[in-house]
């Protein structure tokens, strides 16, 4: 992998921008909590009725945690690659394109910064785990760092591939509604995929986020039962890795073209 000054400075720039945009920082931290505590609380009564002894109260909320981590990574990865479109719209992309660095350097820089920002935001959510009854030890944290990095990387590569083809920010809404939200809804983040009708189930099978969220469930909800992981962990890792490699190659190719 090409890690040099140019990659370093592209990553640093994205971090500076991220932490300077207070609104963005706040949104990314608050949105998952809204899902977890508001949607989670509301639906948990419906999905898993509380027993007389109070058991099952937090079960759905626990189920949501891997999904909400997946959602956070998804939004964060796609949003950070939109900075490419932003840069194109505001001209800054040209500053990078005319520099004596290869296009691959720019792709790697954006990939690493998107991955790192998603990793940061995804891991922040583990802080709430103990409060909703998900027990995590050091081993799980380490496993999550690995898996969240992998999933973040693949989704950032995917976002970069999209961004390479977006000419303006107006296209972002279309992407959001037709790709990002369906990816989230059909990933097993909010409900297990096995009960979905076949056409929708097929979509979940080609959705990389399904495998990502499933992998998180392996680590965070190891107990088994009707709300636990649905695919083998090894399949999750392989699917996400292959998807990441293909997307990285495609986005590198898209960026190396000249008009």
């Amino acid at each position, binding site marked *: 992998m090409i890690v040099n000054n140019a990659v370093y400075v592209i990553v640093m720039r994205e971090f500076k*921008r991220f932490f*300077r945009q207070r609104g963005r920082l706040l949104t990314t931290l608050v949105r998952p909590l809204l899902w977890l505590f508001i949607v989670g609380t509301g639906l948990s009564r419906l999905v898993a009725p509380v027993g007389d002894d109070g058991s099952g109260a937090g079960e759905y909320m626990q189920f949501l945690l891997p999904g909400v981590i997946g959602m956070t990574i998804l939004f964060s990865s796609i949003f950070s690659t939109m900075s490419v479109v932003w840069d194109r719209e505001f001209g800054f992309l*040209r*500053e990078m394109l*005319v520099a004596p660095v290869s296009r691959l350097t720019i792709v790697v820089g954006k990939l690493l910064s998107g991955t790192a920002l998603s990793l940061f935001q995804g891991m922040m959510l583990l802080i709430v785990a103990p409060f909703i009854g998900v027990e995590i030890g050091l081993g799980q944290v380490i496993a999550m760092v690995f898996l969240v990095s992998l999933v973040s990387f693949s989704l950032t590569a995917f976002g970069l591939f999209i961004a390479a083809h977006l000419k303006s920010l107006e296209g972002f809404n279309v992407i959001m509604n037709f790709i990002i939200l369906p990816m989230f809804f059909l990933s097993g983040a909010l409900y297990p995929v096995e009960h979905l009708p076949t056409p929708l189930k097929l979509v979940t099978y080609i959705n990389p986020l399904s495998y990502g969220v499933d992998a998180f469930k392996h680590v965070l909800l190891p107990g088994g039962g009707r709300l636990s992981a649905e695919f083998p962990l090894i399949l999750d890792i392989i699917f996400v890795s292959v998807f990441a490699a293909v997307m990285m190659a495609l986005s590198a190719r898209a960026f190396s073209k000249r008009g």
Partner: protein
Amino acid sequence: MAIIEVRDLVKSYNGLPAVNGVSFSVEEGEIFGFLGPNGAGKTTTINILCTLLASDSGSSMVNGFDSMTEPHGVRSSIGLVFQEMTLDNELTAYENLKFHCYLYKMKRALTAQRIEELLAVVGLSDRKNDLVKKFSGGMKRRLEIARGLLHRPKVLFLDEPTLGLDPQTRRNVWEFIADLRAREGNTVFMTTHYMDEAEACDRIAIIDGGRIIACDTPENLKLSLRGDTISLETEDDAKACLELKEGLGLEPTMIKDGGLTLIVEHGEKEIPRILKGLSVGVRTVNLKRPTLDDVFLHMTGREIREDKNMNRNSRQPFRR
């Protein structure tokens, strides 16, 4: 060897030629201007030279590197200031410059000093830690020019460097560019549709409809027109007319409402001769030199700014 060498460059968009067989060369240390109306092909040419755009045919060399096959060599040799802003508004002035240093792989030990030096040159030293989004248009321009010079490029490309700036700032930017060339000794390649800016170039190429229609020093281009116009008002126009014809061999024209005009090559040298040669009293003398506007009008049959109501911000096509 010329530092920029362009031969028969062609680039079409959807079958419409934007650049249609352009050839020219620029010598090291020159300030070379590309003068033409919007849509003449100026930005397309720059984008091809700077490796942002692939040409359909023809060749372009910058500092000995081929724009098509050796983009890396070209990119290391040039500094660019685009028509639109290409700064990061969310970063400070200093951070924008630092980003550039890293991107151009400048030696770490030299960067800080170089940044400070150029910030001082563009008069932004005291604002270096402010976010760029707080800057005025003129300040951003100056910062961009500073950035374009950080890595000591052999050629500085300026695409309409004063577009959208107020007259005062335009003048400042322009003085600054001339001053920089004197200081850093680099070649400057710029596009403009302002005549006064073109005047200040060492040589200019007039481009229209994707073709270069003239390329010379502003002085020579103006000389290629019929010459200077001298207008005279005298005590006795008829007598003056006769004296000018027979005594000095000139061809004056009498004007109905009074006065004479004559066209000569070097007006400033003719005036003393005329005044000496006339026996009648002269009330007024007026010398009008041809401007580049006249040159453009003469060569293309239209004013350069006929299209000035067009949207100036309309972007030239450009892809990754």
